[in-house]
């Protein structure tokens, strides 16, 4: 089971890069806003490959289902749009050792950390909170990319740009 942080949620990299190439058969979109958007849900549903299930759930319901092992028999990827939403799941359902940070795109107050990750101070805060739960944050857009440790890259970035010698634990 994969938990992926990606602010585009369901898109080409996810459908082709992850679901098709790793033969996943279950997509969970965990997002509190999206569950009210019937149009967007339909548009997403018609776009996924046949044989793949998709569900749109709130953050709380996703955590509950994880604790109940609801997707035990399926090959599942859970998508969240932010480090905050990932943290909200992880603190309720401590079932992941690793979280994939797949895509956070540059906008407003975000700064570019790596090729596929741009974050603002709130994202940074929640990434560190996830890290402090003992979970590895693995950065990569696609399964074929070389994974890197997001917290290590973040610490180096802070040291280089702000002279902040931050331990990965804060």
């Amino acid at each position: 089971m994969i938990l992926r942080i990606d602010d585009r949620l369901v898109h080409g990299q996810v459908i082709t890069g992850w679901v098709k190439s790793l033969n996943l058969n279950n997509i969970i979109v965990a997002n509190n806003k999206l569950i009210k958007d019937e149009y967007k849900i339909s548009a997403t549903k018609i776009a996924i490959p046949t044989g793949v299930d998709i569900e749109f759930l709130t953050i709380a319901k996703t955590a509950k289902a994880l604790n109940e092992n609801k997707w035990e028999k399926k090959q599942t990827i859970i998508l969240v749009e932010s480090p905050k939403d990932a943290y909200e799941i992880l603190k309720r359902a401590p079932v992941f050792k690793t979280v994939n940070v797949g895509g956070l795109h540059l906008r407003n107050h975000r700064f570019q950390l790596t090729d596929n990750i741009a974050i603002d101070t709130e994202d940074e805060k929640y990434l560190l909170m996830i890290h402090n739960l003992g979970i590895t944050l693995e950065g990569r857009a696609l399964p074929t990319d070389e994974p890197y440790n997001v917290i290590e890259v973040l610490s180096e970035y802070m040291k280089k740009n702000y002279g902040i010698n931050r331990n990965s634990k804060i």
Partner: protein
Amino acid sequence: MSKKVKILILSHGKLAQALTETAELIIGKNNDLHFINLTKEKSYESFKSEVENFVNNNIKFNIIIFLDMIGGTCYNVCCEIFKNKKNIKIFSGVNLPVLLETVMNKDYISFPELIMNIKKIGSESIVFVNERLDKCKTKK
């Protein structure tokens, strides 16, 4: 006389641009043919606003949007913008034969006919050449 038809190709990377340029190589420059690339550097928001601008500037025309694939970011943007706009028709899985046929036919047949035509050509445009050749041989 039905409204003029504008064509917009949206793709990941520079496929949309390459398709447009290739089509123009074959059938000549066409002012109704447009593309917007979603390159790695472009944000979701700026891509979306480019598409929105195109749609708003061509609101009095019929618009056909060709996408490279369903479910991708271009598709997601399109779905957001398309909502309630009756003059926009969206097709996913663009290829050169479909594009050429559409550009060549659009001024000569009605819009509903054009749409039916695209559906037909689209599903016929992937050809398993070996199979066709084998059929050809057995007929002899």
